[in-house]
């Protein structure tokens, strides 16, 4: 056979690659969503820094669930800060997981390409 035979161990590696590859695509989408949410919160925080706390009508309402609540400026800033912290943590955790997976994906690619060369396409 001009082709390199696939062993059971190779199959396990191929499966792992397939799973990690699919997972990576999903995580990228989640990452994008989180980054957009974070940007929105940061923009909102910056907007609020320019506000006067006594000018009550200018203070935007804070969205909780599907409703908007009128809050004094200090409480609003507090909530925005908490939101930003939560989102930052989530982004960090996701980035970490993606890093780990990327390392393993690179490893698998090297091994599989070195054994199978042109017989497979991993991209």
């Amino acid at each position, binding site marked *: 056979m001009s082709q390199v035979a*696939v062993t059971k161990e190779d199959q396990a590696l191929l*499966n*792992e690659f397939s799973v990690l590859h*699919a997972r990576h695509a999903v995580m990228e989408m989640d990452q994008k969503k989180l980054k957009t949410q974070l940007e929105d919160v940061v923009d909102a925080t910056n907007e609020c820094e320019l506000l006067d706390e006594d000018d009550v009508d200018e203070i935007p309402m804070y969205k909780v669930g599907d*409703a908007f609540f009128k809050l004094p400026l200090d409480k609003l800033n507090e909530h925005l800060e908490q939101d930003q912290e939560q989102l930052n943590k989530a982004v960090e955790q996701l980035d970490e997981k993606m890093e780990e997976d990327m390392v393993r994906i690179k490893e698998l690619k090297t091994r599989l390409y070195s054994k199978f060369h042109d017989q497979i396409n991993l991209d």
Partner: protein
Amino acid sequence: MDSSNTNGRGIPAAEFYEFKELSLEEAEKQLTRFQEFIAKYRFMETSIVRRVAGLDEKLPEIEKTLQTVTFLEAEQDENLDVLYELDDTLYANAQVTASNTVCLWLGANVMLEYPVAEAKTLLTSKLEAAKETLKTCKEDLEFLRAQITTMEVNTARVYNHTVELKRRQK
């Protein structure tokens, strides 16, 4: 990725088909067998994908409710001005006093009143349960993906072997 005989939810693992020599007849038989397996796996995949879609819809709802309950708990006894959703794209103004009870819609035309703390606990556990189910569904999907790949590679190897056989026979 381990391949024990079944995964946690009883999905059978795909065997890696080993062979040395294979007659054309036997090969055809195996190829049909592999196709059947792939069809069964894909069917399971579709039903789990549907379940994931349902959960993806429910989860944000639970999160929003929990967020609202947590907010009310923090603003106890405060008078609040709120713009709430009366209907899709229709909002109305209201003045509310954050009470220490909330009413939760449990489905099936049932609504129960809960003290705020209890409501928060209930919603948190519902949220955790939904996230757990979502996690196992995603694991099942990954497992299925691996089994389908194994079957597809089985098919490719057996098919290549038949090509080799036919070439030898010439």
